[in-house]
């Protein structure tokens, strides 16, 4: 992966700029149950260790999430009955009494205030990747409807399905998880240059992101292509915490873009 050291260094800087501490987005839902379902969906989309902070009114609830698992509620605990006792304690499994207790705390918070935002930052404590309750089991334990957002294909799976289906239609691609290139396809020469090219593109892309996409956009895809015969076109896709940079001939890039849209379109 040393070929991608510059890209990974760039991603670290750019994503830090993109997600400034305290910068949040709205947690969608009009009722406590809907907000809990939306939170489970967020947990299901979080691969890397993150401190998710839910902020609403004068309340803030901090959660440790990694590997699509809710690992713990963190300090400082919200001033809700029972919160202080749970804060900092890892959730061992879905059967533990702390799981329904945490749901009760969230339900109390979401019943008092429905306008919550959610923000994420690096987790500064480590619970281990196998600690916590997976999102699918959490949905069951918390009574989140199967028809809710948690049923949707997880971002990681969406990206895997997309990249696996590209086959020979692409020249090369890089799969990016957080700040790391986690997988790749293409010749060694093409991949070496693609890492550099991705770093150049992402510099401008993240700098202008807010002018390119609406604030609540999910599953963003960007295609930029020269005329046919001028070399590769590019596509960059992002969903949750995972993304991919794809190079393909200009006459192949539109079918590739449509495959992506078929996976993510509402």
């Amino acid at each position: 992966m040393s070929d991608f050291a510059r890209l990974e260094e760039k991603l670290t800087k750019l994503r830090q700029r993109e997600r400034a501490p305290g910068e949040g987005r709205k947690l969608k839902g009009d009722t406590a149950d809907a907000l809990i379902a939306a939170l489970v969906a967020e947990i299901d989309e979080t691969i890397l260790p993150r401190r998710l902070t839910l902020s609403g009114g004068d309340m803030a609830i901090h959660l440790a999430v990694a590997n699509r698992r809710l690992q713990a509620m963190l300090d400082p605990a919200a001033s809700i009955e029972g919160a202080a006792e749970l804060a900092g304690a890892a959730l061992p499994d879905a059967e533990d009494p702390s799981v329904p207790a945490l749901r009760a705390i969230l339900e109390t918070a979401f019943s008092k205030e429905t306008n919550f935002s959610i923000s994420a930052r690096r987790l500064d404590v480590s619970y281990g990747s196998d600690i916590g309750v997976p999102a699918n089991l959490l949905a069951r334990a918390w009574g989140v409807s199967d028809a809710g957002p948690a049923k949707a294909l997880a971002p990681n799976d969406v990206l895997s399905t997309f990249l696996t289906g590209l086959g020979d239609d692409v020249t090369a691609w890089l799969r990016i998880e957080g700040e790391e290139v986690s997988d790749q396809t293409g010749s060694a020469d093409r991949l070496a240059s693609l890492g550099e090219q991705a770093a150049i593109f992402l510099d401008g892309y993240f700098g202008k992101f807010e002018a390119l996409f609406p604030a609540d956009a999910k599953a963003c895809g960007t295609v930029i292509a020269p005329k046919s015969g001028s070399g590769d076109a590019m596509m960059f896709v992002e969903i949750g915490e995972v993304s991919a940079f794809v190079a393909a001939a200009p006459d192949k890039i539109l079918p590739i873009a449509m495959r992506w849209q078929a996976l993510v379109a509402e």
Partner: protein
Amino acid sequence: MSVTDALDAMRSELSGCSLVAYTDLSSALVLSASTIGQHGQEELDALSNAAKLALTGVVSEGASAVWAASDPEAPAETAMFLTSAEARVFIRSPGEAPEALVCVCAPDSDLNVVVDCGRTTLARILGESE
């Protein structure tokens, strides 16, 4: 066919298309637009600014690194910003004219059809202005 007629024809031809606009890339101003429903000036300005960034601005410059080894002078001809809710397609006019067509359509649109239709519309508009 006038510019307005050409934009109306394109919007009518594409199922799920809510907006087609003809924009000047150097000034990032919409020259003419055909829309369904209300699209405020702020939205048109934002689309025009996105077209400029994608086809001649910093985003286009960054993307051109991908094809620079083959054709360093080639400009971005087509750009798209896609979300789960919509597809925004930008097509640069051929030649030196710094103009582009912007199309906002359904997220599952046939993008080949949208681009082909956009190129035909641009040809009609440019043929009209010559």
